[in-house]
């Protein structure tokens, strides 16, 4: 049993092709020439379905994932080396390099963040001040309404005050 499992793992291609052709053969028992087009379509469908499943299984397997990670690491490393070389070239020619532009845009970004944070803080303070003023003018209006209702006499009407704008 252990030997069978080892040979299966060692020969996934053989297992796939063997299984695929067996399915194709089983799908077309004694097909005649009049249904050959249909048979061909079925064979094609079966083949592609089997191939798609195999590819999906393979792309989830540990060997593939490790290969994917390694190739990505190598590509990134190569890109970094190229970038470093080009940066040195630019610096040698005393022209701005990509790193310099990145640093500048990073600096602008952090300045923007600081300015926006300060504006947010100021906006909150203004909102708090406006809220206190609204509460105060609301309290004043309430007091004057109470005085008027106690029969203080007619005067210029200022009873339309509402809170807010």
């Amino acid at each position: 049993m252990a030997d069978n499992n080892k040979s299966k793992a060692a020969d996934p291609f053989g297992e796939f092709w063997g299984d695929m052709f067996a399915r194709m053969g089983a799908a077309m028992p004694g097909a005649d020439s009049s249904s050959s087009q249909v048979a061909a379509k079925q064979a094609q469908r079966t083949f592609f379905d089997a191939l798609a499943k195999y590819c999906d299984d393979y792309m989830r397997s540990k060997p593939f994932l490790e290969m994917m990670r390694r190739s990505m690491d190598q590509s990134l490393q190569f890109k970094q080396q190229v970038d470093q070389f080009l940066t040195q070239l630019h610096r040698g020619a005393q022209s701005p390099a990509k790193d310099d532009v990145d640093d500048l845009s990073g600096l602008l970004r952090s300045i923007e963040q600081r300015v926006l944070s300060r504006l947010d803080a100021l906006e909150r303070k203004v909102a708090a001040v406006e809220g206190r003023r609204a509460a105060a003018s609301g309290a004043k209006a309430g007091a004057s309404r109470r005085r008027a209702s106690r029969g203080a006499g007619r005067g210029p009407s200022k009873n339309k005050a509402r809170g807010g704008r």
Partner: protein
Amino acid sequence: MTTASTNPFQSLFTMPQPAFAVDFDELRRKLAAMPRVMDLAGKVRVGATPRDVIYREDKLQVLRYESDVPKKHRTPLLLVFALVNRPYILDLLPHKSVVQQFLRAGFDVFLIDWGVPSESDKHLTLEDYIETYMHNVVCRVCEFSGMDRLSLLGYCMGGTMSAMYTALHPERVKNFILMAAPVDWSDREALLAVWTDTKWFDVDKVVDTFGNAPPQWLQGSFAMLKPVANLIEKYLNFYERIEDERFLEEFFAMETWVNDNIPVAGETFRQFVKDCFQKNLLIQDKLRIGRSTVRLAEITCPVLNLMASGDHLVPCGQSASFNDHVGSADRKSITFPAGHIGLSVGSRAQKELWPSVCEWLAARSDSTKSRTAGPGGKGTAKKKLARAQGPSRVGS
């Protein structure tokens, strides 16, 4: 499976030979069709529904679609697509257009075109996209329509971002439609979830090296999710149907979109992969956007969750639990037999799904009645906002 005694290769020689004979007449016909094919390829027009740009901010544009159909609903509808591809997939062709479906149903339709990020945009974060760009867009659309709230439809990553926005600003969203959008990455069955696992994918290295996520790398990765369908079957099917002009129009439109990938802003990509794909913070109510924590229970508006049963990119398992986490009383799910893109452009979806989505939304939108909504129109904004504070109680 084959038994040990059967030679599997024997069956190859017993297959009917005419099945594999080349039909030279057919080949000649198809070759003769090539000039017409080239002509059609040059004439393909995507995203052709007339529209105006009503708002611009940095590279972003907001499009308002025009239609001869009178507006029946005052509540505007804003469509939000992913950052990875161009949004005209929602308006691919006149007969394959989600935009047209809503326009015919009498909605005022807007769409965010995020634009193409450049190197200088690599510092943009999810907070910039959601709390700045999306919020400004929503405010502008509401102001334009004279309404305090709008309906929001988010597709794919745009749906995830729209869910975050709705949770952070529930007072702005009247109805929310989630379309093939991942919100719960605990289901690790999808191939993309396997590839983005921390064991195999270091997103920091990619972003630190490239800045923005490169479009060619993204496109290649998506194509490799279904290599047989995308690299073999697609072209065989093209050969077989090369004389069908309708098919060619749709094929070239689709190819235009598929090959129109754009980069994703680096910091957004980093945050999305780490916080969503890898740590799955959104569904756990632990995702931070700026100073705020996104809590899906804050979503109390009517919710419609559209999923595609054949979606290999966003399997249903990544969307289904959304309805269990929102605070809405009115929530509905529809699982439609289609793929990720077929959900919007598939013929069956256009015939069966979208009319029912339009009905769902129409029942939950303010109607125009005797007044027609126009640009800069003022409604009874404060009263509507005061009424809109509580959760919806409309039955589905």
